[in-house]
């Protein structure tokens, strides 16, 4: 081997070593750089801001107050009202979402003609914009000329002022959320249902189990991982509903979620404090408490769905 050759080989080897050792960091760097600055840092900095009295309108007066925001928050009836509404909406959205999704998935799991059409149909609500759809639903749930009331009247029910009551407004908002997410979860369930071995159903049928029994004793237990996953994903989404309550009653006082705050969620209260009153310290404290509450509720959801029995 001549000298020149060796030099070429050395250089190639060095380049190769550099390539395998350092290049990967270059490839993942853009993600971590941007996420670090605009994702992770704000998330952690929220905790620091929550320990301050800090208002956008008077940034220079910002000072550390330690846990004062939290003490105020825990004694704030509006906050507890918002947390109550959040929990109520969580229950009214998460449970029907999962039950309906299981039912729709079971329907789609049969031999259906034009299955692509039906699958696209169930996912359609998920791709539409939450702002547009909430505005549309707010009209459908209108008191005087809303289509929902018109249909109810056909069945002899009186006119309902959906936005006025706590229960009715929660039901209306829950309908929007369930409408939006059920099909998406149904497709996740469907994918797993198709992976279940037909021999399990064969054996059950030979044992005389009905379709209903098979669904609850075979299908649902085998979908346990997906049900757990869906419960957690749905919980993190449903605990921070904002667009629906904000646009259900749009207008100057939209951030209060109804005249009596009857459908103000915690996320909406965060928005009200942060971006109509610019009380950043207090708003950040709401964010921190909401994050903790979400983790607890997701944990509860996990404990409940984990108990689904596998035969």
């Amino acid at each position, binding site marked *: 081997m001549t000298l020149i050759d060796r030099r070429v080989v050395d250089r190639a080897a060095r380049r190769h070593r550099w390539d395998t050792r350092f290049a990967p960091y270059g490839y993942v760097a853009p993600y971590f750089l941007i996420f670090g600055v605009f994702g992770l840092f704000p998330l952690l900095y929220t905790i620091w801001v929550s320990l301050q009295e800090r208002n956008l309108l008077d940034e220079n007066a910002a000072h550390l107050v330690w846990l004062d925001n939290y003490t105020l928050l825990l004694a704030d009836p509006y906050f507890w009202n918002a947390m109550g509404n959040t929990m109520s909406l969580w229950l009214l959205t998460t449970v029907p979402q999962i039950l309906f999704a299981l039912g729709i998935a079971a329907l789609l799991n049969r031999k259906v003609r034009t299955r692509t059409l039906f699958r696209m149909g169930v996912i359609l609500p998920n791709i539409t914009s939450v702002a547009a759809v909430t505005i549309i639903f707010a009209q459908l749930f209108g008191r005087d*000329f809303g289509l929902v009331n018109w249909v109810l009247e056909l069945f002899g029910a009186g006119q309902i002022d959906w936005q006025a009551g706590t229960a009715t407004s929660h039901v209306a908002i829950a309908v929007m959320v369930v409408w939006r997410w059920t099909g998406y979860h149904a497709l996740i369930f469907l994918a797993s249902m198709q992976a279940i071995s037909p021999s399990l159903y064969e054996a059950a049928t030979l044992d005389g189990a009905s379709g209903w029994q098979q669904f609850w004793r075979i299908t649902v237990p085998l979908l346990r991982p997906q049900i757990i996953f869906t419960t957690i994903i749905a919980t993190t989404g449903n605990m921070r509903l904002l667009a629906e309550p904000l646009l259900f009653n749009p207008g100057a006082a939209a951030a209060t979620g109804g005249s009596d705050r009857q459908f103000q969620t915690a996320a909406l209260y965060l928005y009200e404090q942060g971006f109509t009153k610019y009380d950043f310290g207090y708003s950040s404290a709401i964010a921190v408490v909401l994050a903790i509450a979400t983790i607890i509720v997701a944990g509860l959801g996990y404990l409940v769905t984990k108990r689904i029995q596998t035969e």
Partner: protein
Amino acid sequence: MTAVLERPAPVRPTGPAGKARRLARRVAGPWTYAALIAVLAGSAFPVYWSFVVSSQTPDAIDSVPPVLVPGGHLFENIARVFDTTDFALAMMNSIIVSSTVTVSVVLFSTLAGFAFAKMKFRGRNVLLLLIIATQAIPTELGIIPLYMMMSEFGWAGEIHAVIVPGLVTAFGVFFMRQYFERAIPDELLEAGRMDGCHSLRLFWHVALPAARPAAAVLGLFTFMQAWNDFFWPLVVLVPENPTVQTALSTLASGYTTDYTLVLTAATIGTVPVLAVFLLFGRQIVGGIMSGAVKG
């Protein structure tokens, strides 16, 4: 990706086991179709109804019984939307935001996904775990400091304040990594390395072409998500420089009681994602069913 979960060709076995097999994945009867059609109608109805109102005169929205068929005033109403509000600017902003974010997310996710799936480096597992963990955390909870940063940079009210935080997503990286793991055999890359190929060339000539189907699905999802994004644009933008979603919010919050106008705007704002959906619905369904997407 779209080929996942294709069913095998139907078999018609005989005997009791055959009966069971046929029952196992039952052929849909009339009731199944009735139920599915009801679900389909329920899914499509709000969007359809919004379109109906957009094509009627303003008094149609108050009429009893409600009007349920399209009329001939669609273009008139659309013209009214563009005359009374700066909806053209909103559309332009949304197009710029969504396409920039889509290109960036696909590019950076593919690059990082490739490194995570096919290259060995110290700290790889820890970094990957970090990405998975951040997927579960709602980053909106950092919205106050993010807003403070944007005002500090002087970006508040400008669309780059919406674009920049969206340039990468944890989901995108994880999604592409999963795809590379399955789709590209190590031997192929090894052969390239033996030939002295730099990893960037391997990425460009081997990995990227192979990743096209997954990158397309990721692009579709990213575009739709960016187009529909509401909370952060609402917070950081001003009504004079909106995206479609914040323009809708402003329009609905105004003192106008002209709901035909509002719903026409909602319809216009839905058209781009609807078009993407109708063109690529099959891929989108395939993407969700491969367990790919999270909300």
